[in-house]
């Protein structure tokens, strides 16, 4: 049964030059799990918001939405549930139970009914353990699950989600997607999800809508999306965002049915390339002789009675390399980075930067022309109402003569591709744009060492690729980069060396190829598919290269 149909829907924001959504035409069956994907700024969010009366943006709308046989979206807030990207700002009240009850209170439901529905939902999502907790003490994943549950208590017929996992770490994101799947399978709820983690949602989706420039480019079952997209344009920017199996299938160009999961991808590789297996030859790992950052037996804890976070950490990072620190949530990666940045002081051990102990940098000296730190939330870097003013501030502290300032800003902005954003308000930028502007701001201080905390959070595949190219460019200028990340795929592509942080210290460190080849779970999807054939092929590009050198189809 059809739940709703969108007919020739176009939308334009006031003062905008072109349509944000143009001629969208699609319908959704009741009980379907549909995924909406596309590069940032393609109009996904606008389209989703138009489907719900309370969130619909103001502007010029043509075409129509037929919902459940009626000629417009329903006015009843409970019928369509909406979950957005930021877990924090969607929460309204101070206690978990109050947040769950909030929507029902608004609808004027009697307290005895609220009690039952809230209890039921808390049970379904496993919230009962933190039911009476304060909302500000929850983890990001718990917050987003709470947002989902507090929409679900209103018993909607359609659930719309706008990149709900964008701010979550991979484990919390998988949990969240699993919860969505459970809702869809067990409650038969229709789900429309905008998402860029396609690796995980492709196998569970019934349908994929691919948007580009405000249009719906493809509308098909997930298995056909990859083949159709590569037929349409073999260098389409959305191809790198596809699941690894699809990318390898497309890159090897052997045809046949397109694999989607790791298991199918492995079968596909074995079927087609088994007999000519060869190991991937890699250039030998070389590093600069100079050690730029050195940690010697560093111990740290946040309070006297609290447990140690860093337990004798020792590490060497060489000049000009990109060192990625990987590890689970709460392992202490960010703390290690803060210690290197001089924001936390270890109670034992030493940290040397550029051959000099961190204690000997006085005042703000460490942060001027030596070290730059990009925190997890790039919005904390900005304090003014346009990006240019923020950048000028940095140059002022460096005491750079006034006439040189503009030139320097233009140069750095040009390198990072943010010249067109300089006069915008930081909060008007998209996640990827804000990240790049924040990076531009911190590297204006001409650092020799750049510290990045989760730089790929909330970025789509295209933006991630852009970031890794920018970092490569900075490395060529001699910068040393230390990056803390959850993102295995990004580390495999960008890093010179990876290290795994566990139980307060580094337990292994090596080049990405050797590092991931040694692991069997904690490794990239491409490597899990190909490891039986070429154990050291880590990125999709490397697997494709192996396949091609193995000589096509057997």
């Amino acid at each position, binding site marked *: 049964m059809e739940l709703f149909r969108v007919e020739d829907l176009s939308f334009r924001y006031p003062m905008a030059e072109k349509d944000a959504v143009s001629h969208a035409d699609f319908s959704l069956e009741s009980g379907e799990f549909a995924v909406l994907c596309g590069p940032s700024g393609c109009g996904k969010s606008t389209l989703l918001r138009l489907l719900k009366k309370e969130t619909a943006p103001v502007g010029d709308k043509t075409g129509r939405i037929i919902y459940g046989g009626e000629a417009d979206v329903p006015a009843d807030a409970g019928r369509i549930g909406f979950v957005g990207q930021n877990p924090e700002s969607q929460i*309204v009240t101070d206690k978990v139970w109050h947040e769950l009850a909030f929507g029902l209170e608004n609808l004027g439901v009697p307290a005895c009914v*609220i009690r039952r529905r809230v209890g039921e939902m808390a049970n379904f999502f496993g919230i009962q353990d933190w039911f009476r907790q*304060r909302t500000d003490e929850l983890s990001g994943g718990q917050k987003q699950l709470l947002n989902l549950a507090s929409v679900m208590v209103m018993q909607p017929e359609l659930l719309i989600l706008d990149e709900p996992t964008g701010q979550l770490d991979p484990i919390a994101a998988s949990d969240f997607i699993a919860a969505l799947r459970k809702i869809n399978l067990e409650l038969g709820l229709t789900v429309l999800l905008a998402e860029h983690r396609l690796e995980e949602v492709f196998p569970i989706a019934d349908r994929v809508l691919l948007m580009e420039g405000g249009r719906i480019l493809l509308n098909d079952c997930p298995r056909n999306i990859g083949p159709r997209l590569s037929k349409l344009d073999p260098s389409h920017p959305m191809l790198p965002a596809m699941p690894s199996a699809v990318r390898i299938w497309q890159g090897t160009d052997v045809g046949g049915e397109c694999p989607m999961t790791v298991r199918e991808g492995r079968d596909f590789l074995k079927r087609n390339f088994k007999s000519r297996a060869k190991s991937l030859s890699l250039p030998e790992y070389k590093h600069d002789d100079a050690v730029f950052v050195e940690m010697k037996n560093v111990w740290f804890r946040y309070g006297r009675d609290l447990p140690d976070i860093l337990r004798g950490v020792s590490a060497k990072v060489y000049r000009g390399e990109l060192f990625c620190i990987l590890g689970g949530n709460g392992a202490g990666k960010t703390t290690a980075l803060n210690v290197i940045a001089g924001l936390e002081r270890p109670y034992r051990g030493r940290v040397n930067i550029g051959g000099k102990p961190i204690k000997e940098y006085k005042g703000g000296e460490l942060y*001027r022309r030596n*070290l730059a730190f990009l925190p997890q939330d790039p919005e904390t870097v900005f304090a003014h109402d346009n990006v240019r003013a923020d950048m000028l501030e940095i140059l002022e502290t460096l005491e750079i003569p006034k006439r040189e300032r503009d030139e320097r800003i233009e140069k750095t902005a040009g390198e990072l591709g943010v010249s067109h954003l300089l006069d915008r308000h930081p909060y008007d930028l998209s996640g990827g744009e804000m990240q790049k502007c924040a990076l531009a701001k911190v590297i204006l201080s001409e650092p020799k060492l750049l510290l990045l905390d989760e730089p790929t959070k909330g970025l789509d595949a295209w933006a991630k690729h852009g970031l890794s190219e920018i970092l490569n460019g900075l490395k060529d200028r001699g910068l040393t980069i230390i990056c803390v990340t959850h993102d295995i795929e990004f580390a495999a592509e960008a890093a010179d060396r990876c290290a795994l942080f566990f139980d307060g210290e580094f337990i292994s460190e090596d080049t990405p190829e050797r590092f991931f080849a040694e692991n069997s779970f904690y490794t990239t999807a491409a490597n899990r598919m190909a490891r039986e054939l070429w154990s050291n092929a880590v990125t999709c590009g490397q697997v494709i290269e192996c396949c091609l050198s193995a000589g096509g189809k057997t």
Partner: protein
Amino acid sequence: MKAFSNVHPAVCMTYFLSVLLVSMFVPHPVLQAEVLFGGALFCALLGGRRASFRDLGFYVPLFLMVAVTNPLFSHNGVTPLFFLNGNPVTLEAILCGISIAVTVIGVLLWCKCYSFIMTSDKFLYLFGKPIPKLSLVLSMALRFIPVYIRQSRRVSRAQKAMGLYSGKSIVDRVKNRMRVLTAMISWSLENAMETSASMKARGYGGKKRTSFFPFRFRTSDGVLLAGTIVLLAVTLAGAAAGVTDFNFYPRVGVIGNSSAAVAVYAAFGALCLLPSALEVKEAVTWNYFVSRI
């Protein structure tokens, strides 16, 4: 979870108000001692041994300070002990000072227990129920404050790591505070916009709101409420009848030992020990269960 935390908020509130009311308005040495003892015991049960020892470091000096201040400024009383700068220091004033100190510390301890038991949601339940809008606003404010503090720490840390926070001169420091503040204003506005969108998406501003609170009035709450009221009534009746009248000036009065007075002491003592008894009973029942399993 402590036993008294599970009591219905209305009963908790009645209880705390009863104890505080009597301790502040019926100045009688026996009742004051009971307030202090009951409060200290309850506080120790709630906070644990370690926290209680740490708190001694605060309460003992405070006690001495309050107790010493009174005889220094009040020279009433008929029994001068010695002269200080030509002014008499009297026995009555010293005893009165100790009495005031006991009351102050006792009330402070009870307030501490109050803040431990009466969490914000219980308070909202009691006072927000008649005005649902107010209760929502308070609840939002209680959420916003810790979130704001955390974000402003993040901002000031990020600014520091950009070398904007050398912190040498006062001018510099004030400028940096201002910078963090302006950043926080943009952040708050942005955050508020998203929150209001989320509120609208969940139907806020439509029909008349109801309010939901996860508290139930159980039989045990009724019993506790009745007990509190009876004990309070006996104490107040005694106070009204003049049984608990006591004066320090001009001469220290006599602590009554009539049967009526003893009844008042017993009733108020029981009132002060009620929550501690409840905690102990809970612990004992629990141990009994454990030993049976």
